[in-house]
């Protein structure tokens, strides 16, 4: 379904602020898999997601999605295959448009937009039903501008918008990180519900050990722009947050060792 091969990206190359965000990442995700990506700040997990979404061109490597080589596709073209929810709840919706108008926009993701009415009577009823199923109590407020809703409500609607037209791949970029605990819980419940119901192939980045241990059927751990750990199957099912912390500690120690070793070599030979 999704295949990354040797994905490499360096930001600001040749400057003091050079960041080697991805160092040859290869990852293959099968149709229907729910993959959770976890890693420390700067480990490249969000960069990985953005590389799939097409927010920049890779320095090296390939991205294949649903049988297409999308490596050179622009972001808006990949949107035909991808549904996305962002970390910032304000990024996924247009604040001055109404709930209904936002949903109507999402309903034509990846299709041509002509001079037909954006919101017809039939569409109104259909979308109202979809909102009602989310049990957010928003089905009677479809004509309110979305900017007047809370972050949690907006994120829930973004989730609905991303899955309104069934995407080949759903990308979730720390989509609960900016929410209060209660809203975060609700959004996670909705995520599980939608992913399971539509059997969506999902790639989710998270900060939360709890989410990483409890969600999805495969876990990918990133560090220093590389995949350092890939857990699936029964091992993933029995994984607890404490196990994850222990693994993180191992990785951190290994990296520290690397650095001290490099320092030592530098001192003695250069």
């Amino acid at each position, binding site marked *: 379904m999704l295949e990354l091969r040797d994905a490499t990206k360096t930001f600001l190359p040749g400057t003091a602020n050079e960041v080697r965000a991805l160092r040859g990442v290869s990852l293959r995700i099968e149709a229907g898999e729910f993959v959770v990506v976890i890693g420390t700040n700067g480990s490249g997990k969000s960069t990985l997601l953005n590389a799939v979404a097409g927010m920049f061109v890779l320095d090296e490597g390939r991205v294949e999605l649903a049988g297409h080589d999308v490596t050179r596709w622009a972001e808006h073209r990949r*949107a*035909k295959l991808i549904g996305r929810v962002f970390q910032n709840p304000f990024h996924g919706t247009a604040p001055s448009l109404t709930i209904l108008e936002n949903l109507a926009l999402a309903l034509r993701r990846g*299709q041509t937009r002509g001079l037909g009415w954006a919101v017809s009577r039939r569409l109104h009823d259909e979308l109202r039903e979809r909102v009602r199923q989310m049990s957010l109590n928003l089905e009677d407020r479809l004509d309110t501008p979305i900017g007047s809703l809370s972050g949690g409500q907006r994120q829930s609607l973004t989730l609905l918008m991303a899955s309104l037209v069934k995407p080949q791949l759903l990308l979730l970029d720390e989509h609960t990180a900016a929410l209060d605990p209660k809203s975060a819980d609700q959004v996670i419940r909705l995520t599980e519900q939608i992913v399971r119901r539509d059997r969506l192939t999902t790639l989710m980045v998270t900060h939360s050990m709890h989410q990483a241990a409890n969600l999805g059927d495969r876990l990918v751990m990133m560090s220093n722009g590389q995949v350092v750990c890939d857990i699936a199957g029964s091992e993933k099912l029995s994984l607890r947050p404490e196990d994850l912390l222990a693994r993180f500690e191992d990785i951190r120690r290994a990296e520290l060792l690397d650095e001290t070793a490099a320092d030592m070599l530098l001192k003695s030979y250069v």
Partner: protein
Amino acid sequence: MILLIGSLTIGLILSLLAFGVLVTFRVLAFRDLTVDGSVALGGAVTAALLVHQVHPVVATLAAFAAGALAGTVTGLLHTRCQINGLLAGILVMTALYSVNLHILTKSNVPLDSEAMTTLISYAGSATGTMDLFGWQVPTRELIVLSASAVFIALLGLGLHAFFQTQWGLALRATGDNAQMIRALGVDVGWMQTGGLALSNGLIALGGGLLVQYQGFADVQMGIGMVVWGLASMIIGDSLVGTKQLGWLITGAVMGSLLFRLLVAIALRWGLNPNDLKLVTAAFVFVALVLPEVLKHLPKRRRAASEKGAI
């Protein structure tokens, strides 16, 4: 009374300017400075075609097409060549000055409605005056005013309808949240370019109508028009006091009318015409700053009264 009718007619024609500014500045959140050039471009194209005895409807529509082309160039400079939006507009506006001179062949071209057919000529057969609430008003002026009103009303409705279509909605979302609409599969660059074409097309159409009404085209006629359009839009905003698009469009027409009337009154009271642009700019400045000042004012007053209570 003739002065009033004249002001209203020009106010109506220049609502097109306010429509255009509404599309770029408000809907797309793009500060487009092509405006000054495209008003004059529309006027020049219409005038040149009328001089060559082209049918006035064709000459007027050609103004729209020329303006749309100018807007497209600004859009391409910004989206394909990554030039800052303000600068892209200024470049095109500056280039248009020469283009307009070429089109007009000289800096001022009179349009005599006796010698050629303009849209005004269609009202020309009506001579004499009519009684309007006790005033004697030339019938011809009234016909032009009513025709302008009908035209602007239809165009405003059309614009509102456009913003309810799939394309129009995507255009609004582009100005509201570009990241979101890109993730929904819309090429933001083309949307901006399309919006700029629409906006400058409307503005040039206004220029094309204006030259026919005032009976001449001048290469300088565009100077300061972007501020003029902004002033109309800002007045309109405060008149309707809502962010709903239908009201904003209505407000743009009302703002344009009111602004034109205020100018006419100020000139009547002895404002030096040379100071007109200075006053307009000052007005837009005040209109932009005043809401911020007013926001802070009650707080200070409340703080003062609380202090007084203690």
